[in-house]
Structures are given as structure tokens and as C-alpha cells.
């Protein structure tokens, strides 16, 4: 599991880009023996700037494998951006980056 996180400020707007490693299983797929592969997907993503919620996203299994996310938030160079996710099995991960 890993997260790539970048945050860049331009004209007062901070562009946050992230790539998360996650299988994002829909629960609709079957393995080669015909057994259903259980659903396993990120259900919540929170983007914070200096510990304040900037974006709270709820996701379903329709988000592609190894999800990509880009949003625009308020902030300035040097501020801390944190992205954390939780999946439907209760697993979680997070990453931090300085706004450049």
C-alpha cells in the first residue's frame, strides 16, 4: 500500500493530486473457479490542509483500481496537506506533503 501525493500552489489555488494503491474490487467479479471475489474498495477519502478538512469524499466500487484523485483547495506554499483513506474492510492509509 502506498500513496503518491503532490500539492502545488498557483495564483492562490492549491492543486492536490494523489494516486492510491488499492485493488478496488467491485464484488461483481469472479475468480477462475467461479467464486465471487468479495468487494474491497476505498469508501472514504479525506484531504486536509493544516489539519482542517478541505475535501471529504465518499466512494463506491466504481472508482478505478489504484485510484487517482485531483481536487483544488485553499492554502499557501509550505502548508501541510494530508490525504487519508479508509476502505470497506476498515483498512486505512495516509500520506502528507508540503504545498509547493
Amino acid at each position, binding site marked *: 500500500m502506498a500513496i503518491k501525493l503532490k500539492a502545488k500552489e498557483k495564483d492562490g*489555488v492549491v492543486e492536490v493530486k494523489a494516486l492510491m494503491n488499492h485493488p*478496488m474490487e*467491485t464484488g*461483481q*467479479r469472479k475468480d477462475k473457479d467461479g467464486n465471487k471475489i468479495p468487494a474491497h474498495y476505498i*469508501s472514504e477519502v479525506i484531504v486536509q490542509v493544516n489539519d*482542517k*478538512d*478541505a*475535501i*471529504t*469524499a*465518499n*466512494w*463506491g*466500487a*466504481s*472508482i*478505478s*483500481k489504484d*485510484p*487517482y*484523485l*485531483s*481536487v*483544488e*483547495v*485553499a*492554502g499557501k506554499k509550505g502548508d501541510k496537506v494530508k490525504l487519508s483513506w479508509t476502505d*470497506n474492510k476498515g483498512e486505512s492509509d495516509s500520506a502528507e506533503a508540503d504545498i509547493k
Partner: protein
Amino acid sequence: MKRRTFLQGTVTAGAAALAAGAGLLTPGAVMADNHGGDMAEAFKLDNLEAAMKAIGAEGAEESGDIKIKAPEIAENGAVVPVTVSTDMEGVTEIAMVVAENPTPLAAVFKLGEGSKAMASTRLKMGKTSDMVAVVKAGDKSYMAKQEVKVTIGGCGG
């Protein structure tokens, strides 16, 4: 596509009428509980109408101010880049809904203070479908849609 949507609508309405006739709860009454509360169930709903209702977007006004950036033709339905943005004032929420997916509700983004009304991600599309964007501004919901033709489905089937 249009015909399929129409047929689905008819079937759902028919089922609702049956349930109501039999003295059961209508789907609407059940779904109303999801709004504003635990979102997890909304992402498991298996039809467009219920999904839209769950995010409070039933009867949302169609708006030309919502921009959907998505390919007209997606060669690979497993990875369809979608960006939704708007210049509307007072936007609090952006949602992405894939009309024809087994569970249509894909994502809901709640915007904190100062965040721009823009969200970009990649979605799976099982087959050719309308990509529906819902924007909540003030206490009203607005929507826009764009068809994305899928040549290879994204659900591993």
C-alpha cells in the same frame, strides 16, 4: 440508450406501485433514511433512481453551468477519466453517477471552506452509459450528463 433508461424507469415505477399496492414501504421511504446519514448504503443501491434519491438529487434541475470532462468514447471501461467542475456560487457537494453501472453512485465529494468546485478521478464503466454529474449549491441540486461509449467493459466480465 434512451429507450433502456425509459424501460428501467417503467420497471422501477411498476415495482414501486406494486409494493405500495401490497401495503409495503415504497423504495422512496426506505431510501430517504440514507440522505445526510451513513453514505455507505447509497453506494450499494442497484438502480439510478434510488441512487439519485439517496443523494437528494431526485428531480435535480439540469444545468448548463456544470462541466463534465469525459471521453466520448472510452476504449477501456476500467479506467475512464472524469472531471466535474462548475463556476456556480456556494457549491457544497459534487457527485458522480454512472447510470448503467450495477451500483450507479460512484463518488460524492463534500467541499470544505475555500475548496474549488472541481473533482477529477477515474471511473469504471461496465458498458456505454450516461455519466451523470450532480452539484449541490445552496440547498438545491443541479445535474448534467454526458454519454460515454465504452468499447471494452470495465467490470472484468
